[in-house]
């Protein structure tokens, strides 16, 4: 019953003001987005822009009203309970004597003396017009049962009031914060390992081939990454057979990249010069990491043609690219698992893989935070959208 009432108020609040408040909410959202776009590592939003003070106060007031309503109901129930207990004691006492001298009410204002006989016979209203003849003791049992149900109702109401009070205090706090001009600084938390996930994800996608990113990936080696890489290696071996086939495909791609992405060549030359040590690392796993990353990035970024000439040195090169075509499902799995484990739900809900990839097309190699920029998705959506479609088509092409 109570929950029902609650529904009611929600439904009707506020019946006619809804359109403006709706539009207001939309506006606020937009504001938030705009700030997110600008932010590099996080967002700074004033609390008042998200929850205007007066709105928060209104909400708080509404909750207070609800509390008052519940309190009233609670009061009524308490009255019932006290009535009930009084009645129980009365019923208990009545059969003590065979008859009682009482004043019988007659009409509205008149009483006349009378005598109560049959003090152990009660006609109890069970509800809905049903009466039952009971003795005093039986009546007391019924009354006690009623008292119990009343008590349970009181308990549930109390719990509800507690909930509402918590809500009210939250709203009050929000209102106060908004009034004082608090700022909400939100920076997405990215776990070390999940960062690497997104890093490999980045490579899988078209994404940036920024030197920092690669360096970091190579520098930070942990279990997760090693596992992914070992899996990559496995696939690499499996796909060696398809080597020659993919090579032809790649030649085509590099040609394309030569014309269309010539402006970005320099960036990757810089990259290559920066990390020669990764190209010939002593340890095999590392070598493979670098290899697969670079090859992948080349494979997916047409621009990375310089890698190609150097990449030919390594026998695994071509095959890694082919391996890459099989990679996405695997990587997705790991990625999903990692994100569910490490990341706050906030981020998993957003289209995670795209963020880093979009970075690449801002062209800012220097300003590359390698994984925190989930919020800047809007900036380059169109660009990356067109880019994203390419690997897919290529993927298909290679499969044929």
């Amino acid at each position, binding site marked *: *019953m109570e929950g*029902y*009432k609650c*529904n*009611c108020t929600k*439904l*009707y609040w506020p*019946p*006619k003001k*809804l*359109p403006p408040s*709706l*539009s207001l909410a939309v506006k606020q959202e937009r504001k938030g987005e705009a700030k997110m776009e600008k932010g590099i590592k996080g967002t700074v939003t004033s609390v008042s822009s998200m929850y205007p003070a007066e709105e928060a106060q209104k909400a708080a007031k509404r909750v207070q009203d609800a509390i008052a309503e519940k309190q009233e109901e609670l009061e009524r129930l308490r009255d019932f309970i006290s009535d009930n207990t009084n009645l129980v004691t009365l019923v208990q006492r009545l059969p003590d004597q065979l008859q009682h001298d009482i004043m019988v009410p007659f009409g509205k204002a008149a009483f006349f003396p009378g005598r109560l006989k049959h003090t152990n016979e009660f*006609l109890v209203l*069970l*509800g*809905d*017009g*049903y*009466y*039952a*003849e*009971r003795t005093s003791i039986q009546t007391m*049992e*019924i009354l006690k*049962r*009623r008292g119990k*149900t009343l008590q349970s109702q009181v308990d549930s109401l109390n719990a509800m009031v507690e909930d509402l009070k918590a809500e009210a205090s939250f709203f009050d706090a929000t209102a106060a914060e908004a009034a004082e001009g608090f700022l909400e600084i939100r920076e997405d938390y990215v776990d070390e390992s999940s960062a690497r996930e997104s890093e490999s994800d980045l490579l899988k996608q078209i994404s940036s081939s920024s030197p920092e990113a690669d360096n970091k990936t190579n520098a930070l080696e942990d279990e997760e990454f090693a596992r992914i890489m070992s899996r990559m290696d496995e696939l690499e071996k499996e796909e060696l057979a398809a080597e020659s086939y993919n090579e032809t495909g790649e030649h085509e791609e590099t040609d394309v990249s030569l014309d269309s992405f010539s402006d970005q060549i320099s960036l990757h030359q810089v990259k290559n010069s920066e990390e020669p040590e990764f190209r010939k690392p002593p340890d095999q796993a590392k070598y493979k990491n670098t290899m697969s990353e670079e090859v992948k990035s080349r494979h997916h970024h047409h621009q990375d043609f310089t890698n190609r000439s150097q990449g030919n040195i390594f026998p695994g090169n071509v095959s890694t690219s082919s391996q890459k075509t099989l990679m996405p499902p695997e990587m997705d799995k790991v990625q999903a698992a990692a994100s569910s484990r490490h990341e706050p739900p906030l981020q998993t809900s957003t289209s995670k893989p795209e963020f880093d990839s979009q970075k690449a097309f801002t062209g800012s190699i220097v300003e590359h935070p390698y994984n925190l920029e989930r919020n800047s998705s809007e900036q380059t959506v169109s660009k990356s959208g067109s880019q994203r479609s390419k690997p897919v088509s290529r993927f298909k092409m290679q499969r044929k």
Partner: protein
Amino acid sequence: MGSASALKELQRDLETKANDLSKIQKDIAKNHQVRKKYTIQLGENELVLKELDLLQEDANVYKLIGPVLVKQDLAEANANVRKRIEYISAELKRLDATLQDLEEKQSSKKETVCILSLFLYIYIYIYLSQPRSDYGI
């Protein structure tokens, strides 16, 4: 002149839609009230049933019909209460269905009203930003 009449048309449209919306809202409110009444009755009847189940076979049970108490058989009273509960439950289900229907209608109406008011707003804005000579409705 054309724009003025269009504006009026839009306004009228919006008004009718808003009226429809408020009507639906009233219906929903009524529905809620009826529902509430039925839920209370259901609870009461369930209590009665519980008490009747606890009575002995030979207990005297009366039903208040108008001003008189009519003696009833316990089994009969039990059956009656059960039937009543069934009826109320069915009624509640029905009310739920209508409520859902009404709510759907309400949300769609709300949308249209929103859009219409937005249109009207834009229209008025354009209208007002036109040179003064175009006034005159």
